[in-house]
């Protein structure tokens, strides 16, 4: 893979801002949903869908496509915005999030939305599902890769560790997990609710190759994805150190915005902040 230029990184940053604006608007219109964990996942999703993954929005069922599974299904707005911007469906659909008859359910459903691979929303399932996709890939000798995004609160679920054991047992090097390590879950800090650290060592001890990076640095994410792809005989987990609510000052590290949408004033403030960043980035291009 060729190196990504500074110009391209700036373009991706701009895309990330656009996605964040969509997230804010969608949640404001839906009057419900999860801003915090959607905003923290943006750079990873942008890096995957706009650079790293092999996929074609015109052929969402292509058997050779790379697959992305959003195990932390409450970050659906981020995924939907990215899929829309890629062209899986019209951007105008985003306004209908969580409304009756919409293809965009509150949490992802594979049969409703083009580009959504797995139905999630009940935490802990996605990595197991990814194992199935990765096993099928090995069996069929296909070259596609499987990406699963997990939440750090989600690590509390026992099934994640069942899946972790199975993925390393079967040496699923075609599988990469991405951990959105934003340190917050509904009841508070992950270390106070149910201690997760030392998270890297936990994954290492389960036989995984681990990489820890700044989860908002697109260049670091792209490098890590490449390293994961090159690593053989072990699945890789990329621990993305992130900020919950990233990009909107009053939502950052604020657990109150886990599952509460912005009101009108908050929406306006958030959009204003994001547009400032947008302008700065546009000036660089």
């Amino acid at each position, binding site marked *: 893979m060729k190196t990504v230029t500074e110009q391209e990184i700036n373009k991706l940053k701009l895309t990330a801002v656009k996605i964040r604006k969509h997230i804010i608007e969608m949640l404001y219109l839906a009057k419900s949903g999860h801003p915090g964990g959607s905003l923290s996942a943006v750079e990873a999703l942008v890096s995957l869908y706009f650079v790293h993954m092999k996929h074609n929005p015109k052929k969402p069922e292509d058997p050779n496509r790379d697959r992305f599974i959003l195990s932390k299904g409450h970050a659906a707005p981020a995924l939907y915005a990215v899929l829309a911007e890629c062209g899986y469906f019209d951007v105008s659909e985003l306004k209908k999030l969580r409304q009756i008859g919409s293809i965009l359910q509150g949490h992802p459903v594979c049969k409703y939305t083009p580009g959504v691979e*797995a139905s999630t929303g*009940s935490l802990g399932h996605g990595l*197991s*599902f990814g194992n*199935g996709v990765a*096993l*099928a890939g090995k*069996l069929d000798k296909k070259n596609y890769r499987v990406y699963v995004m997990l939440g750090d609160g989600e690590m509390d679920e026992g099934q994640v560790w*069942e899946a972790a*054991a199975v993925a390393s047992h079967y040496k699923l090097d075609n599988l990469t997990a991405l951990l959105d390590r934003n340190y917050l879950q509904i009841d508070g800090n992950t270390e106070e609710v149910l201690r997760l650290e030392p998270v890297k060592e936990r994954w290492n001890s389960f036989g995984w190759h681990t990489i820890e990076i700044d989860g908002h640095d697109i260049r670091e994410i792209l490098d890590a994805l490449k390293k994961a792809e090159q690593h053989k005989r072990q699945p890789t987990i990329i621990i993305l150190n992130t900020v919950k609510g990233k990009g909107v000052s009053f939502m950052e590290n604020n657990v109150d915005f886990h599952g509460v949408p912005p009101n009108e004033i908050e929406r306006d403030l958030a959009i204003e902040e994001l547009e400032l960043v947008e302008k700065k980035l546009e000036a660089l291009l």
Partner: protein
Amino acid sequence: MSKKIMVNPRNAYGEALVELGKKHKNLVVLDADLSKSTKTIMFAKKYPNRFFEMGIAEANMISTAAGLASCGKIPFASTFAVFATGRVYDQIRMDIAYSNANVKIFATHGGISVGKDGASHQMIEDLALMRALPNMIVIAPSDATQTKKIVHLMAETYGPMYARVGRADAPLIYNEKDVEDIEIGKGMVVEDGEDITFIATGTMVEPALEAKKTLIKQGIDACVIDMHTIKPLDTQLVLKYAKKTNGIITAEEHSIIGGLGAAVAETLIEKSISTKFLRMGIKDIFCESGDPVDLLEKYELNSKHMVKKAKKLLK
């Protein structure tokens, strides 16, 4: 009386998987450390690369099966009925039923005839749990011949399905010709009758046939329906026999809540059919350890009790 030929439906399942494995290259099998008991080991030996041992981690097994199905595989996931349903209800709900995934859950050791392991292992709520899930087809085959045919039908019909058989050897009811034309969702009239109808599923079909033989000597002509599919229920057949005969007894190795009996009752009452009606099953209790024959006697799930209840109902 001719001696009954006993065949284990679990073996029929294993044999069917081996047959299907040859025919369908996309058929895969998963098990949770019980392959010797569920008989998926027969497939594992023949097609080791298409068999996935998942360890004692059923939740992961179910979601993994869904992932495999999303790539066009036909996964059969097997373990005991307790672990195949209650333990993994959320995984089945999200990844299989809600996603309308082409996953087949085939459970063994259903019902109380598991015997001495006790109530922890006697699954009597699985049919109810699976019936409540949209998109899910629910099946309880009655003998080895039918089991084999049903496993073939499951593999060759798209959609989420749950099937369960018992642990024990079961008397053969059918030959291959008898089951040639069976369809998922269509009950079988095994023995016709005029006076009362047994609608039985799974392990209760054979005792119902025994009960019929006894009843006929006492002047009662019973019909026996093998309702191998609990969902979708063959409501037409239920209504036909509710009208044709003077009473209906449902029989299942399952709680009287939510399974076959409940499904039949719902059908009757919604069509305002007034008939004598009785559900035979486990009466909302946990059972206990014991020899299967003794358990079925204590909890009134054998031909002797069917005879008694039929006579009482028609009085």
